[in-house]
């Protein structure tokens, strides 16, 4: 029951200001310790308990990931573009860093189906390539104008 309340809290308060699923996924993955795979959120842990907060974060992370895996590529491209814009760094720089360093690999939950992971990685790779080609097209348009 407490876990449900914590999940409700995460979705309606912690992530309320985050615009789309991809940004929410990145946000939730950042509450996880890379070395141990355990989640921690100070505010949630003090409001509920450490265990409840961890369990709720893990559940939200998994559900968001499953949801995002089933999104269309077009929607993923839109979300990725919105996320890249929100970083305030030059968009092409972010696209290049994502292609080379593949930081999206750390956004997957620990407990998930290996095929969903493959679909997600593959879609992100394609979305990045599409964004890169869009930027290149826009740049060409600007130069020729």
């Amino acid at each position, binding site marked *: 029951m407490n876990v449900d309340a914590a999940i409700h809290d995460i979705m309606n308060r912690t992530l309320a200001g985050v615009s789309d699923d991809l940004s929410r996924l990145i946000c939730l993955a950042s509450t996880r310790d890379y070395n141990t795979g355990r989640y921690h959120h100070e505010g949630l842990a003090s409001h509920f308990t450490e265990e409840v907060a961890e369990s709720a974060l893990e559940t939200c992370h998994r559900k968001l990931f499953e949801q995002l*895996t*089933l999104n*269309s*590529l*077009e929607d993923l*491209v839109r979300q990725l573009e919105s996320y890249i814009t929100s970083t305030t760094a030059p968009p092409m720089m972010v696209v290049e860093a994502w292609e080379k360093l593949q930081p999206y690999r750390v956004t997957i939950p620990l407990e998930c189906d290996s*095929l969903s992971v493959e679909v997600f990685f593959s879609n992100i*790779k394609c979305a990045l390539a*599409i964004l890169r080609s869009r930027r290149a097209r826009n740049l060409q348009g600007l130069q020729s104008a």
Partner: protein
Amino acid sequence: MNHLLIFLFVGLLFMVLLLLWALKINRTASRNGEHGDLSVEEFERPSLVLADRIFSSQDWDFVRREASYELQREFQRERKRVALLWLKQTRREAARLMKFHRRTIRHNIDVNPSVEIRLAVNYLSFLFLCSVLQVLIRVRGPFRTRRIVGRAFGVANELWSVSERLISGLNASGDRGAPS
């Protein structure tokens, strides 16, 4: 006297061998019991929503609208790889399910031959469709195989349902037959 000793020795040896054999059977039975705790639900049913996503022509239409020819080819390659992975995983789960099914029914006398034959035919059809699908994905790409994916999925679903019904039926009859 000597003959008596030899008889006693042979008798004793025979009893030790019988004891060892009984112990071995007991160990095997308890191992089988561990497997018996598994249920069909533990075998992952193929996910239709994920298959829909992988073989979706909606994504392909978007890429064709949006991307260059090279990017389209790259996308086709990626989707082909993922589609083949889906096929491999689905086939592997079905093979695991059938293996589990064989192990479960091996010592059961309540087996219904007609249902077993139906299950076997179902599995063979599934394997056949998978092989056809594999060739089609390689040759035509994943986006023009949706109909056959639907059929393979339907057969796989039927396979799971029949096996589920069979094993739960066998378990129920096993429970009824078990001494209280």
